[in-house]
C-alpha cells in the first residue's frame, strides 16, 4: 500500500482528525433528526406531548446540524489537510485548530439544546440565538486565522485554486453570517418586515453559495487531479469559476421571494443571476470533468474520489434545477412544496455532503498512515447515500408536482394530505437508509482512526 509510507508530520494532523470525527459523529445525529421529522409527518402523534421533539423544533435542529455539524466540518477536515500540503508547510497552529474543533462541538451541543428548548430567532438558517451566533463567528474567525497564517508561512509560492476557495469561503461566511443574523441586534436578530426577508434570503442562499460550494469546490479541485494523477485541465477556467461564483451567487437570494412584495428590480436581478449561475457552475465542472476525462478507472479505484466525483455530478443537476426554479413560471408550481425540499437534499447531501464524505475518506489514510479500516463499508455507505439521495429527489419531486399542480388547480392543502401520505412514508424509509449509512460511516471512520487493522475492538 502506498499509504504505508506516508509522511505524517509531528503535529499528527490533529485538527483534520478532529473535524473528521466531528463530521462523522454529527452526521448520525443530524440524519436521525431528519428521520425523526420525516416520521412525525407520517405518524404525528409518535412524539405526542414531548415538546422538545415537536416537528417545528426537530426541523431546525436537523438543518443546522447537517449544515454546521456534518457537511461543513467534513469539508473543513479536508481543508485542514490540503492547505498545509498544497503550501508545502505545516498548519500554523494545531493547538488553535484543536481548540477550534472543541469550541465548534461545544457550539453544536448548544445548537441542539437551545433549539430543542424552543430558544430560536425563528428565521430559517438563522435560528441560532445570539450567544451561539457569536460562537459561530468566533470559530470561523479562528479557522480564518489558522488558514491565513499557514498561507503566510508557506514554502510554495503559488496558491492553488483549492486554497483560494477555502480562504474566500471562510472569510465571506464570517461576514455574511454576521449580516444575515443581524448580529448587532442580540434580542431579535431580525430587521422588520420585507427588508428582513431580503437580508435573510441573501444570507440563507449564501450559506450554500459562500460556504458549502467554495469548500466543496476546494475539495474537488484537490482530490480529483490527485486521484487521477493528472494536472488540472485549465487554470483559466479555475479563475473564471472562482470569480464568477462570488459575483453571481451572491445576487440570487431574492429568488426565494419572487411571489412576495419585494422590489421588482431586485427580483429581476435574482432571476437573471440565477440563470447566469450556469457560468461558474460549468466553468468548475468542465475543469474537473476534463481533468478526469479518460481516467474514470482511477476515480473508481479510490473511494474518496468516487464520492467527490459523484458530488460534482449532483452539483450539475442541482444547479441546472436551481436555475430553472428561479423562473417565475416554474416557481408557480414548485414554490412552497416538497419540490424545494428535494432540491435542498440534492444540493446539501448529494453535492456538498457527498464531497464532504469524499474528502474525508480521501484524506483519512494520509492522516493515519494506514489504509481505511474497511473499503467495503465505505463503498456500502456510498451506495446507501447515493440511493437515498436519488430516492429523495424522485419522491420529493413527485410530491412537489402533485402539491404544486393541485394547489394551482384550487385544491386545499388539507385535501392533499391523504394522496401525499405514501410519498412521506417512502421519504422516511429513504431517511432510514441515510441514517444507517451514517452509523456505518462513524464505525468505519473511528475504526480507521483508533484501531490497527485486524486488531479486535
Amino acid at each position, binding site marked *: 500500500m502506498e499509504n504505508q509510507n506516508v509522511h505524517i508530520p509531528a503535529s499528527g494532523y490533529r485538527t483534520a482528525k478532529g473535524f473528521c470525527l466531528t463530521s462523522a459523529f454529527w452526521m448520525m445525529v443530524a440524519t436521525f433528526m431528519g428521520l425523526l421529522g420525516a416520521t412525525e409527518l407520517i405518524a404525528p402523534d409518535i412524539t405526542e406531548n414531548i415538546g422538545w421533539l415537536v416537528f417545528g423544533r426537530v*426541523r431546525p435542529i436537523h438543518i443546522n446540524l447537517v449544515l454546521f455539524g456534518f457537511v461543513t466540518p467534513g469539508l473543513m477536515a479536508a481543508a485542514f489537510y490540503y492547505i498545509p500540503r498544497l503550501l508545502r508547510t505545516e498548519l500554523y497552529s494545531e493547538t488553535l485548530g484543536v481548540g477550534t474543533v472543541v469550541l465548534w462541538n461545544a457550539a453544536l451541543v448548544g445548537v441542539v439544546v437551545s433549539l430543542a428548548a424552543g430558544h430560536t430567532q425563528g428565521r430559517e438558517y438563522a435560528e441560532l440565538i445570539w450567544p451561539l451566533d457569536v460562537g459561530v463567528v468566533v470559530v470561523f474567525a479562528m479557522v480564518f486565522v489558522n488558514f491565513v497564517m499557514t498561507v503566510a508561512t508557506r514554502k510554495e509560492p503559488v496558491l492553488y485554486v483549492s486554497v483560494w476557495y477555502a480562504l474566500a469561503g471562510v472569510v465571506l461566511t464570517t461576514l455574511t453570517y454576521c449580516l444575515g443574523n443581524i448580529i448587532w441586534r442580540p434580542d431579535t436578530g431580525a430587521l422588520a418586515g420585507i427588508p428582513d426577508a431580503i437580508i435573510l434570503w441573501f444570507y440563507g442562499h449564501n450559506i450554500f453559495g459562500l460556504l458549502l460550494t467554495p469548500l466543496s469546490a476546494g475539495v474537488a479541485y484537490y482530490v480529483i487531479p490527485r486521484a487521477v494523477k493528472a494536472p488540472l485541465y485549465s487554470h483559466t477556467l479555475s479563475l473564471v469559476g472562482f470569480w464568477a461564483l462570488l459575483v453571481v451567487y451572491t445576487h440570487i437570494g431574492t429568488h426565494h421571494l419572487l411571489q412576495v412584495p419585494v422590489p421588482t428590480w431586485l427580483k429581476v436581478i435574482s432571476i437573471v443571476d440565477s440563470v447566469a449561475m450556469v457560468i461558474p457552475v460549468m466553468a468548475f465542472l468542465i475543469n474537473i470533468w476534463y481533468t478526469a476525462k479518460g481516467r474514470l478507472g482511477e476515480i473508481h479505484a479510490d473511494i474518496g474520489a468516487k464520492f467527490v466525483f459523484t458530488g460534482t455530478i449532483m452539483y450539475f443537476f442541482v444547479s441546472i434545477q436551481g436555475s430553472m426554479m428561479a423562473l417565475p413560471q416554474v416557481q408557480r408550481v414548485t414554490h412552497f412544496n416538497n419540490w424545494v425540499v428535494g432540491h435542498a437534499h440534492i444540493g446539501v447531501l448529494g453535492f456538498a455532503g457527498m464531497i464532504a464524505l469524499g474528502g474525508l475518506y480521501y484524506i483519512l489514510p494520509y492522516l493515519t498512515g494506514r489504509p481505511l479500516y474497511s473499503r467495503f463499508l465505505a463503498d456500502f455507505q456510498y451506495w446507501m447515500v447515493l440511493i437515498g439521495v436519488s430516492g429523495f429527489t424522485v419522491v420529493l419531486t413527485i410530491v412537489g408536482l402533485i402539491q404544486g399542480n393541485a394547489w394551482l388547480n384550487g385544491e386545499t392543502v388539507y385535501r392533499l394530505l391523504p394522496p401525499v401520505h405514501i410519498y412521506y412514508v417512502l421519504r422516511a424509509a429513504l431517511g432510514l437508509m441515510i441514517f444507517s449509512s451514517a452509523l456505518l460511516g462513524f464505525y468505519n471512520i473511528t475504526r480507521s482512526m483508533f484501531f490497527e487493522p485486524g486488531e479486535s475492538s
Partner: protein
Amino acid sequence: MKMTPKSVIVGSVLILAAVVFVAVWLPYVTRHEKPSEIFRTRTPVEEEGRLIYIANGCVYCHSQSIRTIDWGVGAERIAQAGDYIADRPILLGSERTGVDLSQEGGEHPDDWHIAHFTNPRYVRPNSIMPAFAFLGMDQLKILTAYVQGLGMKDADARMERQRYWKKKVTEAYEAGPEENVHWLNEHVPQGWRDVPNPYPTTEAGLARGEKIYQDNCFGCHSPIGDGMGPAQPWIYPPPFNFTILKGREISGGILYYQIMNGITGSAMPYFKKELESEKIWDVGNFVAVYFINQSDANTEPRGIDASYEPGGFKPPQQP
C-alpha cells in the same frame, strides 16, 4: 492573473461589499413601506403568542404569504408589503406542509382552535400537525389570541362576526333541542330549505359520503353522528347530535347549505373551499340515511333528472 493571498481575500470582500450594497442595502434604504389599510399593531398578548409561534417552529409548515395564484383560506386578500412592517422577524415561511395563516384570524372561533391545538386530529382527522397540549392551556390561549389576530383589521372584523354569532348559537343551543333546530333551520335561506337532495341514494354515493365524513366530520360529530367526537369536550355549543333530527324537517338543501357555508360562531367551519358539489350532496345524504334515518333524496319537487341517475327511466307526467 496571479492569485496572491491579498487578491483572493481583498477581492472577495470587495465583491461581497458591492453586492451587499446593491442587493441588500439599496432596497433597505429606498423602500419605506407605509402601513397597509388592514394594518394595526399587535396587542401585548398577541405579541406573547407570536413568541410561542416562533419558539415551536410553526413557520416551518405555515406560510404567512398569500399570492395572486392562491386558493384556500385567506385567498381573498393578496399580501402587501405594508402588512409586514411590524413583523420582526418576518414570518413568510418557505413551505406549506400546512395551510397559509396570514388571514387565519376569525376563520374559526376560539374553542375550535383550543380543540385543534390540543390535538389537531380532534377537528381535522387527516391533519399531520403535531399536538400542542404539552404547552398547557394558558399558553394555548395566548397562542390562540395571536392566531386570531392574523389578518389584523380584517381579522378583527371576522372576530367581531364570530363573537356576535357565538352569542346567538349559544342562546339557541341553551333553549333546548326543539328551539335549536328551529333556529338553525330558520337561518337557512328559504330557497335552500325547500330543496330536497336531488340525487338518488345509491350504495356508491353512501360509500363516498362515508369517506368524506371520516376525512372531515367525525372528530366533532363522532363516528355514530351523536356529536360526541374527541373534540367535544373543548367545544361549546357542543358538536351537533344528528340522531335527534328525525321528523324535524331537515331537507337535503338544509344539510347542503350548512356544510357549504358552516355555522359561524359555532365550531362548524364552512367546507365550500374543500368539498365540491357532489361531495357535499354525498356526505349530506350519508348523514341523512345513517344518522337521521330519514333522507329526502330524489323526492319531489324534482327537476330534469341528471343523466347518470341509475334505475329505469320513467318520463314525468305531463301537467
